[in-house]
Structure formats: C-alpha cells, structure tokens
C-alpha cells in the first residue's frame, strides 16, 4: 500500500468535512434568501405603517363673513400655516351648504398640513422655528395628535401629501382587472380546451404551443408597445382608460391561464373521458359535462394566480398612459384612470419626502391584497383538489 492507513483516514476526514461544508453553505444560501425577505418586509413596514396615521390639530374655527371668500380667515394667525390647505378650501362650500354655520365658532379637529405631520413623526421638515414651537405647544396641550388616516382609503391622488389616497387607484385596478378577466379567462380556457381536447397532433398545433410558450417569456414592456401601436393608434381605444389597460394585461395573462388550464385538464385521468365516450357522449359533451367541471378548481386557481400577477404589472400600463393624475374616484371604462402599482410609481417619483411613507403605505396595501389573493388560490387548491 502506498498510502498508510493514517493518511487515508486523514484524507477521508477532509472529504467528509468538505461535504459538511457544502451542506452548510447551501443552507446558508437558502437562509440568505429568507433573510432578505425578512429584511424587506421589515423595511416596508417601518416605512409604510406611519402612512396610516395622519396628524390632526384641534383649533378654533371661526365661520365668519370673511371666511366665505378667504377661507384662511377662519383660523387664527398663529395656526394658519399648520392647517391643511385642502381643508381650508372646503370651508366656503360647507358654509354655503349649511347657512347655520355662519357666525359660529367651534373647536374642531382639522387635518394638519403635511409638514406638521412629518414633524410629529420625527422627520426633518421645512417648518420655521416659531411654527415648530407652536406645534410643540399644541402637542403638549393634547391638541395635536396622530390619528387614523381615513383619507388614505377614501380619497384619490392629491398634490398635498396629507390628502393623498389610493381610492382612485384601487378603483382603477378593479376596473382594469375586470376587463382583463372578462377577456383573458374565456379566451384562455377556450384555447386550452381546444389544444388539449380537440386539436389534431400536427405541425399547426405545435406552432400554436410554441407560440404560447414564447408569449409567456416576452418582456412585459413589449406588450405595452403592442398596446400603444395597435390598441391606441390603430383601434382608437381611449388612452389611459381601463379598457386599453385591461386589454393589454389580458394579452399578458393569456399564456398563464392557458398553461394553468392545460395542466388542470391534463390531470383529469383518461378513464373519465373513456367512460363518457362509452355511454355515447360526443366529444364536446365529454368536455363540457365531464372534464371541465372536474378540472374547474385547477383552472380557477391558475386564473387567480394569473390575476395576481396582472395586478402587479406596471411597465405596460405606463406605456399605454395609465399614469395620469387622478384625483377623483371615477368608475367608467373609458375615462382616464390609474392603477395601484402605477400610483406607487408616481408617488415614488415625487420630490416631497412626505410621499415616501405614502408610497410605502400603498405598497403595504398592494402586498396585502396580493397575499390574500395567493392565499385564496392555495386554499382553493387544497380544498377542492382531487387526487386521482
């Protein structure tokens, strides 16, 4: 023996040590991915949770004659820069609707300016020293507080961060996804049924299948170019509308639904089809009455996952113009609208630092909805999936 027994033992120990090292390194890699996820969510929560609170101040509002024309006159001079301009603008309208207000003076909780809000949350602001001292006084008296931010969920976009909300973007997302599902689900399921049950096994069918796999891998921005050149320029669909956004997203979601439906159809065992043929059903009757009902849970799960993917898409919608500034919550298919990811994109580009927390808050809302959608899909799959 050229090597002594001890040499061989030492060599073996070294090899086993390397083996253990590989195990720990690969575990570390997985742990790294998990660590990133924790870091990411913690960061988003830290940045975004403050968005759900908005500063309000309790000041004396004097509904006098001058306030009907110059709303600034309704509040005292030292608190004037601290009250939100958006609130002040609404005063003349309220006095018109309710004439009893004229001449009264009340202590009210009013929305504070965005700078006050940022100051109370501990960020650097543009407030002057005197304004800061007024805020400190009010806070000490309990007249300046952070309250739950209902504006975030009920109002649309605004140039003033204290009034900015995601309601218009959420409505735009709902409308766009309605169009997407209405177009992509029928066409996707019909295509998959054709490819799986009816199509003959020739070159033409293979070409369709290759085509669908390619479509699934095309960068999303190219679908935006398609939407711009064909839907907007050729067909004349109104730009920035949920209609054109929904059509573009439908084309993107189509391959996902087709692939998921095909998998669901394939998982139905052939015995069911043969039994149906055996009692005399035609091919369409076999599909409609025996195969489709059984595979429906898988199809729904795939569609929900496709819908969740479509909800997070931004790039193609930016190209077709759905990044408009939408302050009102409208609900038509042909008016300009925006979607939640596009709203997040717009807010992220705002120079005002107060919008950073609004962006993170919007991200938290979007992530919550997506997690809920995916969890629904998983629960549906677990509950209704049949093991053959």
């Amino acid at each position, binding site marked *: 023996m050229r090597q002594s027994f001890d040499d061989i033992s030492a060599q073996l120990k070294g090899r086993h040590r390397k083996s253990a090292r590989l195990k720990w390194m690969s575990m570390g890699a997985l742990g790294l991915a998990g660590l990133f996820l924790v870091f990411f969510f913690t960061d988003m929560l830290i*940045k975004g949770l403050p968005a759900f609170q908005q500063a309000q101040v309790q000041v004396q509002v004097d509904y006098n004659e001058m306030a009907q024309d110059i709303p600034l006159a309704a509040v005292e001079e030292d608190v004037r820069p601290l009250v939100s301009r958006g609130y002040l603008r609404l005063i003349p309208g309220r006095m018109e609707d309710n004439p009893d207000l004229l001449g009264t003076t009340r202590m009210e909780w009013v929305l504070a300016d965005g700078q006050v809000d940022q100051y109370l949350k501990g960020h650097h602001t543009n407030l002057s020293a005197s304004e800061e001292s007024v805020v400190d006084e009010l806070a000490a008296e309990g007249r300046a507080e952070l309250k739950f931010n209902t504006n975030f969920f009920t109002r649309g976009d605004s140039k003033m961060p204290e009034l900015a909300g995601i309601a218009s973007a959420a409505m735009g997302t709902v409308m766009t996804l309605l169009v997407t599902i209405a177009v992509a689900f029928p066409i996707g399921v019909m295509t998959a049924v054709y490819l799986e049950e009816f199509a003959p096994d020739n070159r033409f069918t293979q070409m369709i299948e290759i085509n669908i796999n390619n479509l699934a891998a095309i960068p999303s921005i190219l679908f*935006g170019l398609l939407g711009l050149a064909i839907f907007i320029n050729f067909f004349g669909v109104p730009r920035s509308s949920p209609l054109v956004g929904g059509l573009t997203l439908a084309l993107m979601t189509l391959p996902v639904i087709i692939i998921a439906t095909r998998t669901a159809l394939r998982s139905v065992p052939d015995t069911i089809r043969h039994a149906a043929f055996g009692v005399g059903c035609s091919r369409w009757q076999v599909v409609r009455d025996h195969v489709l009902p059984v595979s429906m849970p898988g199809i729904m799960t795939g569609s929900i996952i496709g819908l969740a993917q479509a909800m997070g898409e931004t*790039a193609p919608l930016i190209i077709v*113009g759905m990044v408009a500034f939408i302050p009102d919550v409208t609900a038509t298919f042909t008016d300009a609208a925006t979607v939640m990811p596009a709203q997040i994109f717009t807010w992220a580009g705002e120079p005002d630092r107060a919008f950073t927390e609004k962006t*993170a808050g919007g*991200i938290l809302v979007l992530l919550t909805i997506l997690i809920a959608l995916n969890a629904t899909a998983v629960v549906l799959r677990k509950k209704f999936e049949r093991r053959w």
Partner: protein
Amino acid sequence: MQTNQLILLFSGALLVLGLIAFFMGRAKAAKVRASGTAMYAQPDQYAWFAALATAGPAVAVGAIGAFALLLMGANIPTPYLLAASLVVAAGGMMVAMTQVRPDFHARKAIERTIRFILAGAAMISIFTTFGILISIISEAIRFFQMQSFWDFITGTTWNPGASFLAAAGRAEEGATAAQFGSVPLFAGTFMITLVAMLVAIPVGLMSAIYMSEFAPTKVRTVAKPMLEVLAGIPTVVYGFFAAITVAPLVVSVAGMVGLEASYSNALAPGIVMGIMIIPFISSLSDDVINAVPDSMRQGSLALGMTRAETIKDVVVPAALPGIISASLLAISRAMGETMIVVMAAGMRPNLTANPLEDMTTVTVRIVAALTGDQEFASAETLSAFALGLVLFVVTLTLNMVSVIMIRRFREKYRSNNL
C-alpha cells in the same frame, strides 16, 4: 345616438331575437317529436342551433363591417351596419326554422361550430404574436428610415438632442445632430444583468441543491412558498426598495471603503433584480436536479464518494443543461425588466465598466421616449420601437436556446427508467 347606446341596443335586439329563435325552435322540434317521428337530435339541440344560426351571422356581419371601417376607412354609418346585421339575424332565424326537421343532425352542426370557435380562440394567441411583431417592426422601420441601422448598432453616443425639433421642422443651424448609438444602453443593460446573475445564480443554485439533496421535508414545505413569495412581489415594489433603501446603503458602504458611488449606481438595481430572479433559478434547478435518476447518485455513493463529491461531480454535471437553460431564461427576464431600473438606475447613457457609476438601460430609454412629450413621429419616440425590436430579438433567441437545451436534457433522461 351615441355609439355606446347603439351597441347596447344592438346587443339587446340580438339577445331578444336569439331567445325567440331558441323557443320557437324547441317548440317546433318538440311538436315533431310528439307526433311520433324519430329525430336525429334532441329538441334542445335544435333550439341551440336556431339561436346560433340567428346570432352567429349577425355578429360576423357586424365584425366584418367594423374591420372594414377600421382597415379600409369605408364610410358605413354605424346605424346602417347594425340594422343590416339585424336583418341578417332575422334571415338566419328563418333558415334555422326550416332546418328543424327529423333528418337534420343539429348536434353535429352545433359541435362543428363550437370547434370552430375554439380554434378561433386559439388563433388569438398567434394574432397577439403577430401584433407584437407588426407593431414593433413597422415603427422600427420608420425609425431606420430616419437613422442609419449601422450607427444604431455600433454607435457609442446616445444623444437624441434636438430630434423633436427636427421632426417639427424647426431644426436650428449649428445644433448638434441627434445621435442614436445604442451601445451605451446595451452596456448598461448587460452590466445590471451581470450583477443580477452574480447574485441570483450562486444563491439560487445552492438553494436548489440544499432543497433537493439535504433538506428535510419540513424545511422544503416552508422554503418553497417563501421563494414563491419572493417571485410574487411586484417589480415596482422592488424598484422602490432598490431606490430608497439599497442605493443609499451601497453609497455608504462604498464610502466606507473610500470609493465614490452615485445614488443611481448600477449595483442597487442589479442586486435587487438578482434577488427577484432567485426563485426562477432555484425552482427550475430544483426540478432538473430532482429529474436526475437516483441510480446515478446511488452508484456514485456506492463507489465511496461523499455526498458533496456526488453532487459536484455526478448530479450537477448531469443536470447542467437544465441549469444553463434556467440561467438563460433568467438572463432574458433580467434584460427585459423595466420597473426596477426605471426607479433605481440613472437616466444618463454611460459606457463604463464601473458599477458604482450611474448608467441607463434599454428599457429605461424605451419608457422615457414614450412617456415624454415628444411628438409621436419624432426620431426619439420611434427609437423606443427600434430598441424594443432588438430587445425582442435577443430575448426570443435566449428563450429558444433555453427551450432546446431543456428538451435535449429531457430526452437524455427519458430512457433511464430505473
């Protein structure tokens, strides 16, 4: 009347006609059957045939008319078109009524129609691909009529400059001519993709090795959904994270080692993009590593190799085509990624090898060219389509090579059914 109301009225009328046809057809078929004659189909099927024969031709006429309006600009007033469709519907109903007789195979007729509709739905995916190709190529051709193709591919200066003035016919003397050399843009894309791959491939591959070779089942059931969550986060969220958290982190870490980094450096979007791509690589690699037959592992262990040596010298080389295919797919995904780079990368075309500088990429320029306020026919806007065309060709090639590799891998291991 407005178009929307007209279309609503048309749909309503068609629905009513269809219902009338349905019930009339069913009544007639039931009457024939009640008189004792055997029919080739059920009364309900005759009813559906009648309804289809009413609605189908009407919708077809309407669609053809709409296409004629759009494509050839034929001036058919909408009310006349819809009225013609309704007349066709009524005609169809009468033809259907005459077909409700014992020797007519209604069920076969319906199923032939359904099969035709299904095949039509399948064609829509082909139309989509053609639509993408036509839209990108036609606008790109318009761009290449204005600019030289060779300069576009090999030029190293991207400066659209005053091209929109030239398109408006107000180019001044002495203004610099717009240059559209796309090399800096592709260099930026490749740099960010490279950083992303340096993050994603090691972490993704090692995670896949751990999950398929070492991990207990409990860890697998937790780790797989966790990676799917990584894949499900919208890219705009990743972009925000890259711009607000990662980029300042890179700048401060670079400052600690004495290097100067821009706030729009290429490392931040690269790292975040890599993290986004980890699930792609890990799940695809996991599948191919599991597909390697166990007999190979057991043979190698029986010869006295340790687990690490088995993985390194037997399993991974066997799974290599699949892993490379996964990497190619990931590269194609990274090159086409838009939101992360739009939010975190810079706007300045910069041909450099230093990832700490700010640079811009192809997708950022596409977005910038189409969301700016230039007129649509200017060279800058059309350059977006030219860039899109090159991007499409590159990602398509990567995808096809990846598919071919995975197919060959599957063929190789299909015969080993031990």
